[in-house]
């Protein structure tokens, strides 16, 4: 089932795509499409996690710094210590899960505000990552690559980048969890009205904590994908602002920061639209310094349009309410 909001996003994506294509036909060249799919996959994986946190009524600002920290930890274990990737990769994901768990417990058990908790995470992880490497760039070094892992993380199958395939698989699983499972229903109820959810016997603390754990785990996985995309980690800039891309994609995709609203399809479409916009800036020769400005303007317009639509819907609902 596709909601009106998602349909509107699809239309928007098609319109922006058509305009870009008519101005620069390279938009639909194989190279460009593969490149866009790759980036969409990279960003989409963790945007889904951040989206879940937003649906619970929280926010996760820490993922960008987690990429720096988990990136250097992974590289250190894999390239310097020489651990096999079947160990190093799970360690990165596990650390992500652990950090997510800590965020979740600080929010639900200590009662801190999600913004504050994950803002501290953003600062702390970035700082540790820089200290860990003495602020120097960390790379793979000679002869430490692993062909299988490189293929898995940055290869293609039938020209489809593996990042994109991973994104689709994760999205499919999370769509079933969010829209079909008991947990998903509990998550929406908690996000909309935590009090009522609690009075219905739902363990809301566990529901909320789980979203941070999922977000942390997906960030952990994404951190390894990103390392293989950039091939090295400069801890002071690696992953900067990525948390904002994720939040932007989720909001553009219909997640409300008030919680209780959103869909996996919406988050996917939001990620795709953001990537197309970035691409458009490149292809149309718009100065790349305007990148953020274009993104911000489109999100602002989208949210304004959504607000207007909601108001109209409310008005027609109110008319029905008078009748009842």
């Amino acid at each position, binding site marked *: 089932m596709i909601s009106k909001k998602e349909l509107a996003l699809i239309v928007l994506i098609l319109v922006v795509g058509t305009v870009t294509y008519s101005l620069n036909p390279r938009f639909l060249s194989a190279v460009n499409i593969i490149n866009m799919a790759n980036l969409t996959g990279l960003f989409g994986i963790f945007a889904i996690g951040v989206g879940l946190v937003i649906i619970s009524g929280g926010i996760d600002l820490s993922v960008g710094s987690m990429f720096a920290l988990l990136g250097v930890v992974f590289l250190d274990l894999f390239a310097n210590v020489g651990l096999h990737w079947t160990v190093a990769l799970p360690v990165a994901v596990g650390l992500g899960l652990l950090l997510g768990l800590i965020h979740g417990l600080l929010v639900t058990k200590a009662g801190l505000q999600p913004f504050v908790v994950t803002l501290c995470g953003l600062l702390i992880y970035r700082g540790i990552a820089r200290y860990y490497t003495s602020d120097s760039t960390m790379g793979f070094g000679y002869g430490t690559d692993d062909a299988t892992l490189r293929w898995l993380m940055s290869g293609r199958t039938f020209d489809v980048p593996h990042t994109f395939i991973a994104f689709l698989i994760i999205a499919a699983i999370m769509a079933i969890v969010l829209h079909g499972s008991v947990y998903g229903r509990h998550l929406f109820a908690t996000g909309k009205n935590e009090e*009522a959810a609690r009075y219905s016997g739902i363990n809301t603390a566990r529901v909320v904590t789980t979203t941070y754990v999922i977000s942390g785990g997906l960030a952990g996985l994404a951190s390894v994908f990103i390392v293989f995309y950039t091939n090295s980690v400069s801890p002071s800039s690696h992953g900067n602002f990525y948390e904002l891309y994720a939040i932007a994609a989720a909001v553009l995709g219909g997640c409300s920061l008030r919680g209780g609203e959103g869909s996996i399809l919406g988050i996917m479409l939001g990620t795709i639209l953001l990537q197309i916009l970035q691409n458009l800036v490149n292809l149309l020769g718009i100065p790349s310094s305007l990148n953020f400005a274009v993104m911000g303007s489109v999100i602002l317009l989208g949210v304004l349009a959504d607000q207007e639509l909601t108001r109209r819907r409310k008005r027609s609902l109110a*008319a029905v309410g008078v009748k009842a």
Partner: protein
Amino acid sequence: MAIFLSMQGISKSYPGVTALKDVSFEIAAGEVVGLIGENGAGKSTLMKVLGGVVAPSAGTMVIDGAAHDRLTVRQSQAAGIAFVHQELNLFENIDVAGNIFAGREPRTRLGLIDRAGMRREAAQLLEILRVPYGPDTLVECLSIAERQMLEIAKALSMKARLIIMDEPTSSLSLNETDCLLTVVRNLQERGVAIVFITHRLSEVRAIADRVVCLRDGQVAGHLARAEISQDAMVRMMIGRDLQSLYTPPKVTAAVDFLVLSEIVTPAFPHCQLDLTLRTGEILGLAGLVGSGRTSLANTLFGITPAVGGKITLEGTPLSVTRPADAIRAGIYLAPEDRKRAGIVLEMTIRENITLPNLPAFARYGLIRRGPERDLSEQQKTALRIKAPGIETSVVTLSGGNQQKVVLAKWLSMRPRVIIFDEPTRGIDVGAKAEIYALMRELADGGTGILMISSDLEEVIGVSDRIAVMHEGRISGLLERAAFSEDAVMRLAVGLNERHAA
């Protein structure tokens, strides 16, 4: 008496709906008019016309001899019309004086807020109302009743000549209600006209000079002071005789099955509670607001677990540390604040009904829509929830139907004990009778019912036994034969206390 305001032939129609039809209404200075009617009868729309929020489609309003087709909010305020709303509009983080003058702060010559002047004027107004707080008290420290008085002070500060009180007593305890009624009489003596909207007919009887009843957007009738009686008002509101609001029990209460012994709630750490609930009875729990009734309910349901004592259900000890424990044992709560805790407003009827019991509809953690829909349909029919379908969002339903959704949640899960906290607050007479009948039906089926209520008529009409609470303790237990408003009140204020048998 001089007519202050007269509305003639007021109609208001929305596309496809007529909210008001040819309504005429007048009020004189110093007059108290009780405005009654079921939910949706048009009371609020009529008052919104008066407040300038809604423009009428037809009709005229005459204020002080000047005729208007419609009022703007500004004109309405200038004419001295003020509202004391059901949902209070106060800033909790600002003090009393600041709230009274919010948006109209007096300025000094420098353009800064004139704190001294504001406090002086506020103190005068508070003096009139004889409230126990000063202009510097922060609003978050005030009780609901005290906040209501503050709203009235605010109205007076605007030189109000007509104050419209919309369900002012719905969250007040009995003696707070008495205080409010005294204030209303004082205002009346000062020449202020008052429109008193309430579902509690005993208050209308106590205070109104005249009653106007609306039904389906039209004036259903008037009652003069001498004609005001419960029966007459109910008849006008629902347009027929209501046989009885209360359904008598079919079976007499049998055995003790829920026993609370020496329970200590976190809200009253120095008080121990003993209470027994029998199968098939409705045990009324009366007392003033803040006497510990809601904390007892929350403790029983595991929201704020007990810090001491024992709960036994049918002889087996029960440990309730979170709502899931209570739910597993078949103890359910229909909370006081329906919209905040009872239902998820933006979700559908179906999603609300199955929320506490989702795993029962799931296989491998995935919800099966078929059985979920079937059960929701079944409950919607059984409880006669008035809505287009189970996919209707609960936010669009009336208070009575929302309460039915709360019940539908629990009734599908074999209840053994249901705690009703203020079950009919904000619900109109017709729906009230339905809720009472449902409660009785459940009790007759063997469910134990604990009903918390601040409405004395309700407690006495519905309960089989009444336990009264005072400052965290059970101050007395009354059997049916000993029921009287006086007996309940005496126990509620802690007079001639008897210990529970």
